């Protein structure tokens, strides 16, 4: 009887502990931290095919799915196509059977002094009607770029070539030669198509961008002239140029105070453009600028990464997202709206739905959809019947929405509304969850969004509730909130996080005795400082790539002159404010630390140097404090590989689990 009772007791303990750790066992890091699978997709003009780029374990592939549900076909497998490090991007249908993609090969230079250069080609792929035949892969050898695929016109696209005179040519894919095929004496490069008779428009000067309206007409050009000034001109119906705006680049202010708004895409009319501010410390904001009315509106902010380009729908020229640079890789971020007023507001939806491509007749749409508990997927929608079909996912292992909850709240700190997000595991058996407070990096500009965040869902799966605070300085909300972060690194930003934590631990589903704080970059700084200053609130702290000495950070060799000035204005002056800066640096406050700390850092971090981790370590040793420490070899400021990310979150989780009960 006693033995059987023991068995029941053991089974009960196992059951309870399973509910404490959530429904996922250890080792599930791979489920949440893996390379995105499908990264972009575009529908053909008549809708018979959908082209997509996917990442496989062998590298990138270009696939074709069919409207009639024939099996998906791989058109191009990069690892088989070239032995060099290469990637493809920007898909565009030139007609129903012809697809183009930008192909980039990284060529290493001579040994001993490596001169690495990217060699770019526009690949033009003719898809055979018979699925058993191989596609014909051609390329444009003339340096330049595709500017309009002319998807509704057979065997033609517009290609721009820049130089002293910049020209747009109409090019026929059928006259191009196969990629890398040697030309004989009788064959001309690119079929001899780059000549006067194929010219569509020409401008004196080096054209950087050509702008087209939704009807495919050339409406504007951004170009440098011989004197070095940059001009934006409207292009009339007869190809005449009417100057709209000019910038004297020799007088450009590089001190970071004035905006340098450069057009990237045309908006609703020929005088209005979506622009990026190249004087921003990191280019994260998109403005809509009317150059006739001289008016500007902030319409979009990237939550985390620097914007490199805007994504426009090839069929309609509408802007549907931004291309951002993440760990040296270009990533597409789609958006449901280019209207900051409707973006990331508390009353807006928790899911994102962005129409990224449409057939010429509007019959079918390709939509990218994402929500807080489900990573993105590409969905084909029949606009007549509203029937839906999933074409592919960014993270196929997560098929169904995760059973977690996301709630929004706000707290008032010193007269300012501070918004926050709480993510709660939805395990029915458990009533109270330990809490991880997870401040974002930046800190001025970046912010936490309501959309899918793999690390948050991972912590939820491990049984932790997660609090993300959009403290002052965060973007994506009001200008007031963002500007309130100036010179508040070690002061009100930390107070915002502290006050939001105090508000959230009052919730019935949060265990107020089990709270730890984890952050990366500025988040790591905040985690360390708050672990020192608030031992009654936080049982432990985890800092990844965190700043430990603000003076060292401000005197870092890595920022440009513009960034250096920005840091001086927004964080502090290392000469005039030295004592204040020292007082908000964890390395000099570590004698007060009462709770265990985990320090992690990449040894090749070029944003927050690894010296920060070593300074903290030496001070922790000096004062004989309780800490753990991990240096990631060959890692920069953020995790460069999914393996590094898996180790980072696993290590953090194990440390938090170990110490969260130790109050």
């Amino acid at each position, binding site marked *: 009887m006693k033995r059987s009772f023991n068995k029941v007791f053991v089974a009960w303990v196992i059951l309870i502990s399973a509910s404490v750790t959530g429904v996922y066992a250890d080792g599930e890091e791979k489920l949440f931290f893996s390379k995105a699978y499908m990264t972009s997709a575009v529908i053909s003009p008549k809708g018979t095919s959908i082209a997509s780029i996917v990442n496989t374990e062998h590298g990138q592939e270009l696939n074709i799915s069919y409207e009639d549900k024939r099996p998906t076909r791989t058109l191009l497998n990069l690892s088989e196509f070239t032995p060099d490090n290469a990637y493809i991007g920007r898909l565009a249908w030139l007609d129903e059977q012809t697809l183009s993609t930008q192909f980039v090969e990284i060529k290493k230079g001579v040994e001993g002094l490596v*001169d*690495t*250069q990217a060699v770019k080609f526009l690949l033009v792929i003719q898809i055979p009607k018979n699925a058993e035949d191989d596609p014909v892969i051609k390329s444009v050898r003339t340096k330049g770029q595709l500017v309009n695929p002319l998807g509704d016109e057979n065997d033609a696209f517009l290609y721009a070539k820049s130089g002293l005179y910049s020209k747009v040519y109409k090019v026929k894919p059928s006259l191009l030669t196969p990629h890398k095929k040697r030309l004989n004496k009788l064959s001309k490069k690119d079929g001899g198509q780059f000549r006067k008779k194929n010219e569509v428009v020409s401008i004196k000067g080096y054209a950087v961008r050509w702008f087209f309206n939704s009807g495919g007409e050339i409406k504007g050009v951004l170009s440098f002239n011989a004197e070095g000034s940059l001009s934006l001109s409207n292009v009339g119906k007869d190809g005449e140029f009417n100057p709209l705006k000019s910038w004297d680049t020799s007088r450009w202010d590089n001190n970071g105070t004035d905006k340098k708004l450069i057009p990237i895409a045309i908006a609703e009319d020929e005088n209005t453009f979506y622009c990026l501010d190249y004087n921003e410390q990191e280019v994260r904001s998109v403005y809509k600028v009317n150059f006739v009315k001289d008016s500007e509106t902030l319409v979009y902010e990237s939550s985390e990464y620097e914007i490199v380009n805007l994504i426009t729908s090839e069929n309609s020229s509408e802007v549907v997202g931004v291309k951002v640079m993440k760990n040296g890789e270009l990533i597409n971020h789609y958006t449901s709206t280019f209207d900051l007023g409707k973006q990331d507001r508390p009353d807006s939806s928790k899911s994102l739905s962005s129409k990224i491509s449409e057939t010429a007749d509007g019959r079918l749409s390709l939509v990218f959809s994402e929500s807080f508990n489900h990573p993105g997927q590409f969905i084909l929608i029949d606009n007549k019947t509203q029937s839906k079909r999933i074409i592919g996912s960014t993270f196929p292992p997560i098929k169904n929405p995760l059973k977690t909850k996301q709630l929004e709240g706000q707290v008032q700190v010193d007269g300012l509304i501070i918004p926050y997000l709480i993510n709660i595991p939805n395990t029915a058996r458990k009533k109270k969850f330990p809490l991880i407070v997870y401040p974002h990096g930046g800190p001025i500009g970046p912010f936490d969004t309501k959309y899918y965040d793999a690390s948050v869902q991972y912590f939820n799966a491990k049984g932790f509730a997660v609090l993300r605070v959009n403290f002052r300085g965060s973007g994506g909300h009001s200008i007031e909130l963002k500007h309130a972060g100036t010179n508040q690194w070690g002061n009100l930003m930390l107070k915002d996080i502290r006050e939001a934590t105090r508000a959230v631990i009052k919730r019935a589903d949060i265990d107020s005795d089990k709270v730890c704080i984890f952050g990366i970059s500025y988040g790591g700084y905040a985690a360390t400082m708050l672990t020192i200053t608030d031992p009654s609130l936080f049982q432990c702290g985890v800092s990844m790539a965190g700043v430990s*000495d603000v003076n060292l950070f401000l005197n870092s*060799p890595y920022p440009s002159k513009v960034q250096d000035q920005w840091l001086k204005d927004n964080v502090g002056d290392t000469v005039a404010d030295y004592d204040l800066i020292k007082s908000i640096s964890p390395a000099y406050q570590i004698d007060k630390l009462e709770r265990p700390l985990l320090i992690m850092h990449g040894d090749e971090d070029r944003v927050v140097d690894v*010296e920060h981790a070593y300074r903290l370590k030496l001070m922790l040793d000096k004062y004989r404090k309780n800490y753990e420490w991990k240096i990631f070899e060959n890692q920069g400021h953020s995790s460069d590989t999914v393996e590094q990310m898996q180790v980072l979150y696993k290590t953090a989780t194990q440390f938090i689990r170990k110490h969260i009960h130790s109050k």
Partner: protein
Amino acid sequence: MKYWLFILGLGATLPAFSKTPPPLKLYPPDSVIQGVPIKKHEGLVLLELDVDGTASSIEFSRVRVKDQSYLKPNQNLQTAPMTYTLNFMDKPAGFYFFKLPKGLYQVKRIKVPYFNLPFKLDTNNRRTWRFSVDSDQVNFIGRLEIEKERVERSVRVDLINRIATKQSEIEQLIAPILKEFPLRNGVGVRDDFFSDLNKKVEASHETKLQ
């Protein structure tokens, strides 16, 4: 005869007026441990190099300040006309010493070859390219990195403050001379870290730890 003496005398005095003395000699740690003559008011400067043996060099000048290891608020940078040079040709990665009189210095220019095209980076006025030297000490001025990989005609060159990261390695490397020449942080901006680290833990804190 008088004429020749004049020529010889002129030849002997001219170098003293020259504004570019010959490049400073770089010593590996072993030579310094075996003994390098140090003049009065001179300090040993320690630099960690990772320049991949390229024929790069740096030029620097003394800042016109007295007994200061960094510039104070509202103090303008003024440098002496004499330019010192360090050549890194064929120097493998590692620690190197050179000798300099006590003072604050500004690196003004870095020359990096780019195939047959010289690449020059003007670092004048940039505070992160400043370093300080104290006499009779080992002044660690950081790690100089010149990246081997050149992407699209740009090259990354940094002088990185790494006193905490490298402390243990340096102390092991030059242990025999540390008593005579204690290690100090030779950055040219205010940075209290190393001196605060080496301050004794206050008695009240010692008690608390026990």
